[in-house]
């Protein structure tokens, strides 16, 4: 189903992204009015930007694909992806903003200023997380490009990597709030428009009612997730959101802890609205393309649906819109991750110089392309779910205990993160090389979050307890900085 429109949409999205990067600076507001110039980013804009950066291939394509693959169980993913922000709101958003930390390693340094090794370990984990997160974006790009244009799979990752590397290196407005905020609304629109057209077409049909009636039996035949896996996934998604490097840097833009909270509430609303769409499309997929569930291309549901229901021009146009939106999703998430990743690498290995940042950017994009080209992915949402399990077992305990428990020590934090990273990482790797069996131990390997997250917390607490004397002497000062509401007055 090669289509001129889809190819065109792709080119338009990529070229627009690059043009904004090159010329974007000229668009930024120039004024002679100080009041206008020092207007800070409104929570509404920042929330849209977080949405723009967060909604990745997993959300755009993966959620519908997962509903095709696992039926109702797939619904837990959009719920978890959203509800994670509730945890962020309750436990992390405001204190993290008040800490003045820009990245997660910065937070580690603020909390334990004497422990260089903790900062290093946190940096390495951030690098691993970003890489793991970028790879599924590349897979999404490969899938979308080969469906839309028929080009071989490696072209997609290369195109995404090239566009992202060029835009990030050129400086420009790579992470500027307004561009990312626009991305959210663009992604939303590129799913809303096809969804509305599809619903208008299918709802009045008698055929749809018949299909709906058979949906029940259809769902019964799909093997969903069992209780353990469901709990594990919910835990991973809830806690994993707390440690996403590219999301947390956005909170720095908020002027105060209070605005950080407001932003998070708006993000919750925006994500809830967005996830209605892939869910609807997933159900439509079950109704109109049930055969897709048994193939390897369930992630393509959203892309294929318009042409399954419409013919001719309308099908092409709607597909083009979805393809454009999907590419926007890959580009915005990847560039957010690459900026975080390149920042961490350049800080760690190049002393934070401009040149170091450029080299790091190339490194940050090249490696995931290699991995993505030599591997292939079945379920995008599942792959991202694994990344969430990993962050939940490493960064999340550091942030939660670092913010809320004054007895945490640097040694405890390091031990917990190491144990979490090793157990969760090994379990995920082993579960993908040994052939699947329907036993509890295998489920525990495939969805490790339910035990690896508590384990990481337990190790962190136990080791901190046994190294009680190493609690930093400035803990009270740091805690006060994290938790005392911002001073309203400036003097």
């Amino acid at each position, binding site marked *: 189903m090669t289509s001129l429109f889809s190819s065109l949409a792709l080119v338009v999205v990529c070229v627009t992204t690059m043009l904004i990067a090159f010329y974007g*600076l000229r668009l*930024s*507001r*120039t*004024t*002679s*009015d*100080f*009041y*206008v*110039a*020092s*207007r*800070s*980013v409104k929570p509404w804009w920042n929330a849209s930007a977080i949405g723009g950066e967060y909604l990745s291939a997993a959300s755009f394509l993966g959620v519908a694909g997962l509903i095709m693959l696992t039926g109702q169980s797939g619904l837990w993913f959009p719920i978890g992806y959203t509800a994670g922000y509730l945890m962020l709101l309750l436990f992390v958003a405001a204190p993290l903003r008040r800490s*003045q*930390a*820009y*990245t997660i390693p*910065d937070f580690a*340094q*603020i909390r334990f*200023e*004497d422990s260089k090794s903790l900062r290093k370990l946190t940096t390495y984990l951030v690098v691993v997380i970003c890489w793991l997160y970028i*790879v599924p974006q590349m897979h999404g790009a490969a899938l979308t490009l080969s469906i839309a244009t028929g080009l071989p799979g490696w072209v997609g990752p290369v195109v995404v990597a090239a566009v992202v590397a060029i835009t990030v290196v050129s*400086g420009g407005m790579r*992470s*500027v*709030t307004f561009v990312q905020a626009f991305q959210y609304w663009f992604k939303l629109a590129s799913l809303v428009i096809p969804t509305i057209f599809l619903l208008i077409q299918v709802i009045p049909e008698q055929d749809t009612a018949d299909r709906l009636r058979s949906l029940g039996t259809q769902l019964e035949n799909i093997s969903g997730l069992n209780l353990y896996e469901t709990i594990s996934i919910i835990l991973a998604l809830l806690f994993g959101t707390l440690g996403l490097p590219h999301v947390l840097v956005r909170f*720095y*833009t*908020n*002027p105060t802890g209070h605005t950080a909270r407001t932003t998070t509430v708006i993000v919750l609303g925006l994500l809830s609205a967005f996830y209605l769409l892939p869910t609807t499309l997933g159900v439509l997929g079950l109704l109109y393309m049930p055969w897709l569930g048994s193939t390897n291309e369930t992630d393509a549901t959203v892309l294929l649906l318009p042409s399954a229901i419409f013919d001719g021009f309308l099908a092409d146009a709607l597909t083009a819109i979805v393809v454009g939106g999907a590419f926007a999703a890959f580009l915005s998430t990847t560039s957010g991750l690459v*900026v975080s990743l*390149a*920042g961490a690498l*350049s*800080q760690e290995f190049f*002393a*934070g*110089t*401009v040149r170091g*940042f450029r080299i790091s950017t190339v490194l940050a994009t090249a490696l995931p392309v290699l*991995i993505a080209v*030599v*591997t*292939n*992915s*079945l379920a995008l949402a599942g*792959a991202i779910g*694994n990344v969430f399990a990993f962050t939940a077992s490493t960064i999340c305990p550091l942030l939660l205990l670092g913010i809320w428990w004054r007895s945490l020590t640097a040694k405890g934090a390091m031990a917990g993160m190491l144990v979490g990273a090793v157990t969760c990482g090994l379990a*995920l*790797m082993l579960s*993908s*090389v040994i052939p699947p069996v329907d036993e509890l131990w295998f489920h525990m390997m495939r969805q490790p979050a339910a035990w690896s997250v508590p384990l990481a917390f337990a190790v962190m607490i136990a080791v901190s307890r046994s190294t009680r*004397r190493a609690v930093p002497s400035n803990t009270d000062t740091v805690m006060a900085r994290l938790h005392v509401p911002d001073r309203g007055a*400036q*003097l």
Partner: protein
Amino acid sequence: MSPALQITLIATIVAVGIAAIGYFGFKISRSTKEMGTDAEEATFTTLHHMSVAVPHLERGLTSEGAAKSAKALRRLLNCPVLLISDTRSILATDSGIDFTAALEEEAGKAFSTALATGKTQVNRSSGQDFVSAPIMVGDQAVGTVTALTPRAGAGFVRAVSEVAVFVSAQVSTAQLDENKAMLLEAQMRALRAQISPHFIYNSLNAIASFINTDPARARELVIEFADFTRYSFRRRGEFTTLAEELEAIDRYLLLEKARFGERIKVSLRIAPEVLPTQIPFLSLQPLVENAVRHGLEAREDGGVISITATEDGLHAVISVEDDGVGMDPEQLASVLAGTTVNMHVGLRNVDVRLRQLYGNANGLIIDTAPGAGTQITMRIPKFRPPRPAGTGA
């Protein structure tokens, strides 16, 4: 994740692990191989014990550091009990035997005589000898190293004295560090930009000229002046946000405009993302003042000052540009080096503070030539480390 990806990852991790183990194994095997003769080994062991004891004392005589170094020093002296005290009490005891309250009292006596005399003392009592040597900083005893041994020979006494001398050196270094930090802080305070006397004089004159012709404006200007001085006189913290600094610059420019009228134009391009960035207090205002004073004042028709702030990964890049008369780069270099004292003293001030806070590579970047205007850029990390780069940590 797919099997192939997983396999790649496993292979990578295994490869990295083997490389790391191999590297460390090679290093360890090499270091043990070159041990040499017995005498060399004894020297090595002694030095090793010393080097283990040293790092714990780099913050001076704290009970935490003393506890750790006492352990290493006892191993070095090979005695049953070793304790480190300050001038009043025992800071740390490392003991291989049962250290009773009676012994503690004996030890107390031993180290107080050592402190009083400033010389190594040997207290002999009931088969247990206490050797106590003072830790001297300058000519003052700040603590002691006290060792308990069944029979203290001359050699042992000398060894304890030498250890005390060694510890003294470490503690002195710690005090030196402390002094250095204090010096730096004092320097920072002194460097903290102050409003220039020119500016106060000029502003007040400008305001005075409006009092008769435009009383309402004069009143406004006085309030601006008051607000600006309040900002620059404040004593809280070395840092401020870019947003607050811009507000102060706004006030400053309003006052300058009262004098220059429409000859000064301002163009601002500020990325809102960098507004919350913490920048050194009054680090941007002197650059704007420099642009007004040395760039535009000399020109009949005035000019434009552009202030831009953009995001650059982990840094915020802030620059102040004017299209005024420019400066001679060589003269400027000598200003920044501190060899000439002249009117650009504000620039040097900012430059030195930036270097102290963010390391030598992060001073001002100045782009100028006579007649070509001036662009001054600073690159500030968005994250402000808890301690400045100059003081270690």
